[in-house]
């Protein structure tokens, strides 16, 4: 577990950073509060999917309509990144990433988790724990390696020396920077947003944090979109061979 970043324990007045509610599972110490909220997010998504598909009508209405809209959105996202030809098998993966991150972020920004007290640490968005975002980013890495290898076999590795072998170190480095930047971008944005809100709430409890909270909602949605878009871009790059860089912030 990557705990070097979150293990600095300091207490700013009443604000806790790096305090975790540990569970011991086998030989692993896991962050229980992340698990609880992750389960909550999964439950929301699964229940919404079940409700939407329970009574499928020809003309969609209510939640079916909403979820179909969401599916359209996710499909357009994947299509925009991967192109018309091979976006289809990747819709579930990219869509799951987007939906999970989006609902996680918004659950952290909208649900009053602090009403529930844990023995240690506090409930928040799962994406403000580095372990969650690193796991998601590593999944993206595995996904684009799988995409490249399944499409081109071992010829996939030719792209490392494609324009010139001089760039080989950079190309190899890229495989490490991609998951790093993905995970840290998401983690940093969400944690920073929650910290800013928490500090403002501590200083002025009422009304002043509202703009930051609304901005946080916006940022959270954008970060989910960015993560899913970049995942799509990386997979597209692996499928297409040597392509141009897609960098976003």
């Amino acid at each position: 577990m990557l705990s070097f970043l979150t293990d600095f324990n300091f207490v700013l007045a009443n604000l806790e950073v790096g305090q975790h509610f540990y569970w011991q599972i086998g030989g692993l110490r896991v962050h229980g509060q992340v698990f609880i909220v992750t389960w909550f997010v999964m439950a929301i998504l699964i229940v919404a999917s079940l409700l939407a598909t329970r009574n499928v009508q020809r003309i969609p209405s209510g939640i079916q309509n909403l979820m179909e809209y969401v599916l359209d959105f996710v499909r357009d996202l994947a299509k925009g990144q991967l192109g018309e030809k091979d976006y289809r098998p990747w819709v579930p993966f990219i869509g799951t990433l987007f939906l999970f991150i989006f609902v996680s972020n918004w659950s952290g920004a909208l649900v009053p988790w602090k009403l529930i007290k844990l023995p240690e640490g506090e409930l928040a968005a799962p994406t403000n724990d580095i372990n969650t975002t690193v796991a998601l980013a590593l999944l993206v890495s595995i996904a684009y390696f799988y995409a490249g290898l399944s499409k081109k076999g071992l010829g996939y590795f030719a792209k490392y020396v494609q324009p010139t072998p001089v760039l080989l170190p950079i190309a190899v480095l890229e495989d490490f920077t991609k998951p790093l930047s993905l995970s840290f971008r998401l983690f940093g944005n969400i944690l920073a947003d929650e910290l800013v809100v928490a500090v403002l709430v501590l200083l002025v409890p009422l009304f002043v944090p509202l703009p930051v909270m609304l901005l946080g909602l916006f940022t959270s949605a954008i970060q989910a979109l960015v993560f899913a878009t970049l995942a799509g871009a990386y997979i597209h790059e692996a499928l297409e061979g040597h392509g141009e860089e897609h960098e976003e912030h």
Partner: protein
Amino acid sequence: MEIFMRLATGASLLAMEAAEEAEAGGFGINTNLLEANVINLLIVIGLLVYFGRSFLGKTLSTRRTNVETAIRESEERKKKAAAALAEQQQKLAQAQEEAAKIRASATEAANAARAEILAKAEQDMIRMRETASQELNSEQERVINELRQRVVALALQKVEAELPTRLNDESQRNLVNRSIAMIGGAQ
């Protein structure tokens, strides 16, 4: 009196410690609404619902009407296509029927024509054979007549040629006598 006071403070201290311990470990509910940021969250959720509902409602209803029109249009197209298919199938059946009819009549006509041609050919054959045999007969007769005349003519010529040499007075007399004898013998 004092000891009671001490006991009371001790008890209250114990109680406070117990309460703190309960707060530090184990699950619980934080009742401090300001610290839990509940009021701000409620406002944010309210704003989100207020603005999100109209936006989302509009989007979803547009989507629904789009889907409805798409379904209706495609159903109409399907109906039209089915009607066209039925029509064309009917036409096909008609055409096939007509083709069968034409084929039957053509076969009939062909049979009739064949019979007619055969009959005519036979007739022609008979007639030709007849004419041929007639011609043959007449030709034969003509040739026979010609031959006969020719033979007669040749015989007469030869007789006329030989007659002057062989016919002298004696033989003429002999002949006359024999003829007279023959006439006499016959009587």
